[in-house]
């Protein structure tokens, strides 16, 4: 991990580390730890206190539109999260949205990373341009898709269709209403566009850390490019694919900007974060919103855990 050459004097592991001969005093040891404390204390206060509050509120009956009816509700709110048709469908939407976006991003990202791993003129420029979508402010990106691309009158998509049609002399091009015809796909496409560069960066880092001598040896032994990819590159990329999939899922599960901006959660695109937001700010049902919030936290933890294990074991079996 670190580049420490000598055992640091402040080491105080409970297990059999020999006592540092001329270690600093207890006060000095605490002084060494001091730099960490502000960040730690701060982070804990701002995240964990509110989270404890969420946990408490989630078992209360608390709707600010009905202030007198406040009290302990037990697990009613949680039951409501899983039985309420709205919330349940938003859980399904969240899962679909996350899986589709992450998988498509990974596939596209892998393709782009393989492309950028080749040597060609203007590679640096192409890479910079490819990263651009990731750096557009998310809300601006969502607005961009909504207004500049999907808009049936002056959007780029319908404009392109009209142009293509006129190229072939046809005069009545189809002009789909992208957002109302395929709302979930519209949100997914915007997210895929924005998140692919992120996956590409991670996978590119993986590709460039490949031991090239092995690849070279395989090539000399007559391996086809496909074989090299299948048996050398892909296994090496496994942990990078995992990492990308994992981080991607965690962020996409939480996505709020795109859903809020493109469809305002309408037409069956409301995901869990959006529904929580709505439960809280429009229905003012604090208890239920908090319970749904806790569900998201647990969901994220499960993804973080499971995805990692499932993916790694799957790939391990394949490699064998």
């Amino acid at each position, binding site marked *: 991990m670190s*580049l420490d050459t000598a055992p*640091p004097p*402040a080491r*105080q*592991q409970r297990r059999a580390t020999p006592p540092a001969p001329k270690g600093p005093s207890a006060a000095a040891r605490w002084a*060494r730890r001091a730099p*960490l404390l*502000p*960040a*730690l204390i701060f*982070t804990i206060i*701002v*995240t964990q206190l*509110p*989270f404890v509050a*969420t946990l408490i509120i989630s078992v209360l009956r608390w709707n600010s539109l009905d202030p007198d009816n406040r009290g302990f509700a037990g697990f009613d709110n949680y039951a409501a999260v899983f039985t309420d048709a709205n919330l349940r469908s938003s859980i399904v939407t969240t899962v679909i949205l996350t899986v589709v976006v992450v998988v498509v991003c990974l596939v596209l990202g892998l393709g782009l990373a393989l*492309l950028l*791993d*080749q*040597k*060609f003129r*203007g590679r640096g420029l192409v890479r*910079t341009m*490819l*990263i*651009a*979508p990731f*750096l*557009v*402010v*998310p809300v*601006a990106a969502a*607005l*961009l898709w909504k*207004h*500049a*691309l999907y808009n049936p009158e*002056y959007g*780029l998509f319908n*404009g392109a269709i*009209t142009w293509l049609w006129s190229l072939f002399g046809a005069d009545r091009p189809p002009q789909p209403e992208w957002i109302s015809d395929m709302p979930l796909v519209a949100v997914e496409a915007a997210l895929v*566009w924005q998140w692919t560069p992120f996956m590409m*960066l*991670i996978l*590119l*880092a993986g590709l460039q*850390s490949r031991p*090239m001598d092995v690849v070279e040896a395989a090539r000399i032994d007559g391996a086809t490019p496909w074989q090299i990819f299948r048996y050398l590159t892909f296994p090496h990329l496994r942990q*990078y694919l995992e*990492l990308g999939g994992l981080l991607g899922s965690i962020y996409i599960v*939480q996505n*709020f900007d795109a859903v809020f*901006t493109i469809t305002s959660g309408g037409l069956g695109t409301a995901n869990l974060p959006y529904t*929580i*937001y709505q439960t809280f700010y429009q229905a003012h049902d*604090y208890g239920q*919103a*908090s319970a749904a919030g*806790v569900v998201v936290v647990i969901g*994220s933890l499960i993804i973080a855990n499971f995805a990692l294990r499932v993916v790694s074991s799957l790939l391990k079996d394949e490699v064998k």
Partner: protein
Amino acid sequence: MAGIGGAETTAKKTRWGILNAVVVIYALFPVLWIVSLSFKSKDTLADGNFIPRSWTFDNYSEIFKTTEFVRALANSIGIALIATAVAVVFGTMAAYAIARLDFPGKSLLVGVSLLIAMFPQVSLVSPLFEIERSLGLFDTWPGLILPYITFALPLAIYTLSAFFREIPWELEKAAKMDGATPGQAFRRVIAPLAAPGVFTTAILVFIFCWNDFLFAISLTSTERSRTVPVALSFFTGSSQFEDPTGSIAAAAVVITIPIILFVLFFQRRIVAGLTSGAVKG
């Protein structure tokens, strides 16, 4: 590096050219399209021309005339800068301790900070709303700065400790042996080596704060502390009959420019920062 492609044939060149063109269209066309929309006048907005027929700065001058946008821009810059400064100072201290010192519970600590970075923001919104309202922080700058710092800190700690691990710390010892005090060793030897990492982290943290939407829309209610992404999203809803696309396009371009500039100037470093976790994790 990739040992492919010795002699470039014409066919190969063409293939690359086409491939690159496709890739660039995919990534860049939408962005260029919004730039083009932002320069179009109201009556040519829907003409579908890629290059505006009549160029106009009206959209830009219009948004800068509204306090709605100007105030939000000031809020965004102020809030993001303050949050970045605080997060980077605390983050540097913490990352230094993690990379440099050994103490019980260190790995647990790193784990916890990673976990917090991935903590779903949406589940903190409702309690933060309540807490901030009772503390009078709702709809103020600190009301946004505090949660931003919190989510920026783990990002800062993680990125910085990846950078700090690469610093040859023996130099510090050498400096001390030559008679430098710990303070001097840090200031003269370590700080210059750490500066690029700190700088990259600051940029990433700034981008994070600048981009945030969920906290900004949930914890503000007026122009007093509303940031640009939120102001932008209200452009859409407010005028149903007058088409706001021109102003939205202009505003989107204005708020994306700082980020694009950062990236153009510090491209290498940002890419290194974004992937540092992956490479050294």
